């Protein structure tokens, strides 16, 4: 693998030197009559040598394992698959065996011949163990056969890949070299190629979104084939069980999510807004230069830290000083715990966005209000805030979308019990918690219990996307108003 790369790079370097030389030679040694600088002729050859070859290399490397896996998997006799636990596990075993044999060959324990001649009778497990490769189970003839054809196919694939890549590289080099002469518009060609790369990079953002949507849509579709969508969207019970007959209703999860987000906003919006007003309207430069970064530190702290804070400090405190004395429950993970901690996390989010927005309100409006004898707070309340309102609403919506999508704080602070309840000191759970819950650990991706996570993810994505688009639209409209 490494040597393919090195050889390619060497070819590229060679192309650079050759292209440059040929260009200068075609101009009779006088670089001034070339269309472009000599460097560009070299670069042109290098790029044509490397770019197609590297692209093919990358795609091949990604595609080959997928293709081979599919082929081998298809070759396995169905009856044998039925005996084993699952096709996936079988494939893992085959891959491990193939890897093991390869490693043994690499370490010199087997020679190539011996590796091909292995048969089940040879106690492969022991032989491999002697070569320092541990296998989980004894090898069955089917697995051995599959592993051998696996090795054969990957070996062949690798050979073909090497051939293809080098053929492309050499062809590119030859083509570019032959085309090089003093009138070739080498700079323009190089710049076109650079532009192509830049464009490719900028489409990655779209690809990511498409990937997100497609991957979730696909599995959501699978989920709805196994589980009726009405029961998912309108179900009031969340009771997954791996023996089947799960109740997978969205409502209790959505309720927990919204309840926690609501409490978080109840904490974050007043504090963040008042902090922003203080910072923008009242604070002296010195106070501002200290307080603003301090509050913004809160935004730089990873959510896992807030999660732990909820788990070890806020949760027990709320339970011991509020919930238990008031007789409202004795769970340290609760809606309140997660909501308050999430609110703290969102303070800087609300405050710095609002601060920007309040600062964008023109000074002339404030002057107009002061000129009429309004106090500062009257000016803020009756002129600045109404003027800034759309922007602030946008900021709050963005914060809400954050709260709804937040994971670690609720995983550690809110609990795992899906429940439709009003008591904020009760543990509840959210969409994100259940996504984590259903997808971590050993999961069988054909069961509705695992697939439901994709439907939950899609729901989450749609909600937050809607909020974001709406919020960004409002904020943008607001900015235009004062530009």
């Amino acid at each position, binding site marked *: 693998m490494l040597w393919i790369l090195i050889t390619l790079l060497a070819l590229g370097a060679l192309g650079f030197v050759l292209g440059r030389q040929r260009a200068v030679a075609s101009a009779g040694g006088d670089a001034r009559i070339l269309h472009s600088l000599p460097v560009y002729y070299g670069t042109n050859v290098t790029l044509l040598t490397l770019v197609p070859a590297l692209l093919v290399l990358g795609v091949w490397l990604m595609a080959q394992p997928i293709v081979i896996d599919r082929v081998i998997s298809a070759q396995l006799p169905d009856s044998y698959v039925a005996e084993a636990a699952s096709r996936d596990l079988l494939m893992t075993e085959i891959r491990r065996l193939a890897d093991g044999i390869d490693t043994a060959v690499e370490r010199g324990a087997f020679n190539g011949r011996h590796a091909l001649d292995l048969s089940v009778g040879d106690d492969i497990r022991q032989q491999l163990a002697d070569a320092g490769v541990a296998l989980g189970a004894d090898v069955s003839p089917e697995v051995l056969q599959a592993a051998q054809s696996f090795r054969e196919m990957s070996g062949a694939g690798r050979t073909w890949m090497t051939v293809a890549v080098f053929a492309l590289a050499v062809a590119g080099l030859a083509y570019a070299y032959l085309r090089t002469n003093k009138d070739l518009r080498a700079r323009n060609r190089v710049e076109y190629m650079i532009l192509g790369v830049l464009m490719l990079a900028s489409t990655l953002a779209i690809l990511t979104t498409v990937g997100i949507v497609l991957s979730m849509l696909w599995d959501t579709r699978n989920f709805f084939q196994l589980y009726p969508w009405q029961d998912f969207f309108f179900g009031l019970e969340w009771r997954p069980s791996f023996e089947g007959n799960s109740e997978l209703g969205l409502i209790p999860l959505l309720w927990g999510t919204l309840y926690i987000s609501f409490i978080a906003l109840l904490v974050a919006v007043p504090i963040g807004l008042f902090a922003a007003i203080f910072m923008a309207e009242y604070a002296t430069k010195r106070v501002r230069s200290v307080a603003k970064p301090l509050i913004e530190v809160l935004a730089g702290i990873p959510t896992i830290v807030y999660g732990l804070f909820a788990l070890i400090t806020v949760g027990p405190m709320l339970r011991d000083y509020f919930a238990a004395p008031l007789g409202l429950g004795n769970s340290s993970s609760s809606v309140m715990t997660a909501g308050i901690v999430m609110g703290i996390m969102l303070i800087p989010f609300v405050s710095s966005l609002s601060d920007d927005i309040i600062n964008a309100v023109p000074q002339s409006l404030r002057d107009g209000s002061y000129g009429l004898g309004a*106090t500062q707070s009257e000016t803020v309340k009756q002129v600045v805030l109404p003027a800034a309102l759309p922007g602030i609403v946008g900021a709050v919506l963005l914060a809400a979308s954050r709260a709804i999508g937040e994971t670690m704080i609720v995983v550690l602070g809110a609990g795992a019990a899906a429940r439709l309840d009003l008591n904020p000191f009760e543990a509840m759970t959210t969409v994100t918690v259940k996504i984590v819950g259903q997808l971590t650990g050993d999961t069988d991706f054909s069961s509705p219990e695992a697939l439901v996570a994709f439907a939950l993810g899609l729901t989450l994505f749609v909600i937050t996307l809607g909020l974001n688009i709406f919020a960004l639209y409002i904020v943008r409209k607001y900015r235009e108003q004062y530009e």
Partner: protein
Amino acid sequence: MSMEDAIMNDMTQIDQGVAVDELKMQARNVDVFYGAGGGTRSAEDMAADKAITHAIKHVDVDIADKTVTSFIGPSGCGKSTFLRVLNRMNDTIDGCRMTGDVTLEGENIYDSKVDPVQLRAKVGMVFQKPNPFPKSIFDNVAYGPRIHGLARNKADLAEIVEKSLRRAAIWDEVKDRLDAPGTGLSGGQQQRLCIARAVATSPEVLLMDEPCSALDPIATAQVEELIDDLRSRFSVVIVTHSMQQAARVSQKTAFFHLGELVEFDDTDKIFTNPSDPRTESYITGRIG
């Protein structure tokens, strides 16, 4: 006076019909400094400090009631700064310090007992750029009366709003759309709305900081006509860039240059027979 007349107006048509009334405001030995920070340094001390901008230097001005007084002078001469001294708007600027005495009907407005909020209700202000609040026309005008509690009830408030809009000569244009946003009006209308807003708190003095500089000639004429009208009830102080405007609307004119008050006299005197050579240079266009 029709609009065309107003535009055509020049120095020959100075309206000097109203007799100058009694003294309304008096400024004595006023100095203003920028970038002075807090503290209680003396005027001499700050004047000597090179890091501090000495924006206004020992200015004395008397402002009479029911008179239009105009401040003229080149850009940066301190005329706007001085205007803002008169209703303590400079208090809202960080690092701005003022020394000297300013009285309103004999009461020192910089006295520690005076609340600038109460002062500004008596000394209203209209700004260079029309700055209607992003509210309805009605709410814009009602803003002052509401915060100062001038109306006893809704009907009262509506009456104040109507009178103010009438006084600002904009009632007929907006009476059918009082609920429309004030920001939707044209520039001239916006400025008259701002004047109505200032008038609504029934101030005793109305300060105007280049109220026409952002307006087109027609709107300017309307506002000038209005200013002349307002003189019947208020003492008006106007800062202007345009000498013609000063000549047209004011009875008294003060000429500022480099932070100093060069000359302060009757408007016709200033424009026809200035006593200071600098005033003459400015009026004839040699400095400015």
